[in-house]
C-alpha cells in the first residue's frame, strides 16, 4: 500500500499506509491520527478535515471540485493555495509519499 505522512497539529509526524480508494480522512481517523474532526463523516459538508498538501506527490492530486472549493472558503484555519479537505482526496499509487499537514484548528 502507498504511504502518506500526516503531520498532526503540534508537529508530530505519522506515516501511514493508505489503501487505494480510501480517502485520506478515512485513513487518518481510522489510524487514530489527531487533529481531524470530520464531523460530517466525509460528505464534504463541514470543512473540519482541513489540511495542507506538500511534497512532490502533491503534483499528482486532482484539483478540488467546486463543492470542495466553496467549502475551503469556510475553513477555520488560514486558507492557503495548498489547502484541501482530506475527505475529498482519494488515495492512488502516484500519491505515495504525499505530506499532509493537518490544520491547527478545524472549528
Amino acid at each position, binding site marked *: 500500500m502507498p504511504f502518506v505522512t500526516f503531520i498532526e497539529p503540534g508537529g508530530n509526524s505519522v506515516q501511514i499506509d493508505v489503501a487505494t480508494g*480510501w480517502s485520506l480522512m*478515512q485513513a487518518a*481517523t*481510522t*489510524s*487514530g491520527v*489527531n487533529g481531524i*474532526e470530520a*464531523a*460530517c*463523516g466525509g*460528505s*464534504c*459538508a463541514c*470543512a473540519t478535515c482541513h489540511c495542507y498538501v506538500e511534497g512532490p506527490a502533491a503534483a499528482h492530486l486532482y484539483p478540488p471540485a467546486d*463543492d470542495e472549493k*466553496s*467549502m475551503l*472558503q*469556510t475553513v477555520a484555519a488560514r486558507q492557503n493555495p495548498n489547502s484541501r479537505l482530506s475527505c475529498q482526496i482519494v488515495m492512488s499509487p502516484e500519491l505515495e509519499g504525499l505530506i499532509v499537514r493537518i490544520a491547527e484548528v478545524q472549528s
Partner: protein
Amino acid sequence: MSDIVILGAGLAGLTVAESLRAEGHDGAITLVGDELHGPYHRPPLSKGYLLGATLEAQLNMRAAEAYAKKGIVLKTGISATAIDRAGKRVAMSDGSTLAYDGLALCTGSRLRPLPLPGADWQGVHGLRSLDDSRAIAAELKTADNVVVIGGGFIGLEVAAAAKKQGKRVTVLEAADRLMARVVAPLISQFYFDLHAGHGVDVVLGAMVSELVGRDGHITAVRTKDGREFPADLLIVGIGIIPNAELAQAAGIETNGGIVVDACSRTDDPAIVAAGDCTARRLDDGTLRRLESVQNATEQGKSAAAALLGKARPFTATPWFWSDQYDVKLQMVGLTAGFDQVVTRGDPTTRKFSALYYRDGKLIAIDSLNQPAEHMTGRKLLDTGISPTQQQAADTATNLNSLVA
C-alpha cells in the same frame, strides 16, 4: 476522576473517550458497547453503504491500534444491566461489574416499532444499526417491490438508494407532506417532486392499517382507505426512542431522555450523558432532544470536560444533513414556530436556500447543494446576525460579508 466508564460505543461514546485523552485525562477509560462491532459511522448506512459505494471496512471509526495508542479499553457485545450510584459500580450483562469514578451514559436510541401484527416478519426492517443495513442491502438485491413507511430522512434516503438500484419504490407518509417535522412546505414539495421525478410513488396522508404476509414473509401493506401496496421488502422509518431506562432505573432524572444541562451533566455529579439518549434542559426550562452527528460530538466533548470538572457548554446552533440522489440538504437551526420563509435562489436549479424567520428574526436555514451557504448560515446563527428578508432574498447580497 481516575477511572472513567463509558456506556455506549457509538459516536458520542467514542467522542467522550478521545476528548478525555485530548483534555489530558491519564486514568483508565473503558468504552463499552452492546453491539459486536466497535464504533462505526452510521450516516452511510442509509446512503452509500446500501449502494455498495461505502465499504464495510470504511464504516469502522477506528482500527484496534488506535484504541491501544490512546489507552482506551474497548469492550463489545456487552451491556450494562444496572447502575449502583452509591457504590459507583455498573453491573454488566456477563455478570461482571465495572467500578467508576466518572460515568458517561451514551446509550443511544432504538427503533420505534411499528405497532401492527407482522412487524416481526421476514422482509420487514428498521434501519439503525450496521446489522439492519446489511440485511436490507442483502434483500435489496432480490426485491422487486420496496415499500417505505415514513417520509422522513431515513425513509427517503433508503427510498433513493432502492430506486437507484432500479426497484419499484413506494413511500407511505402519514402527514400531508414529506419531512414535515423539520422543513418548510416548499422544501417538502421540492423533495416530493425529486422523488416522483425518479419514479418513486410517494403517497401522502397514507394511514397504514395492516401488514399482509404469507409464510412469515411480508407481501403487501394496506392503508385505511383500502389501498394495497405489494411489498417484498418493507422499511419502517418512523423514528427512534432514546435508551434512558438504565438511567431511570438508577434514579437519574429522565424525561423522554436522560436530562442533561448544556454541559452534558446529569443530576448526579459523577455521571454525564451524551448523544441520542439525552434530553437537554434549556435555559427557559424546556427540554430539547436532538438526534444528530453534531449533537453526539458536541455533547460528547462537553461530557468529557464535565468529567474533568470543566464547564464546556454546547452553544453551537444545531445542524443536520441528508443526502438523497444528487441533492445535499443541509440544515442549520430549528424551524419550530417559524412564521415566514424567504427563498434564496431558484429551486428549479436545485441550488437554493430557504431562510426561516420568527418575529422578524432569522432562526434556521435549509440549503440545497450549497455547502458554502450552509457554512455561512451557521456563522450567522451562531453569532445572532439576522439579515433582513430583502438581503436574504437577494442572491447578489453576499451573506458571508455580514459575518466578517
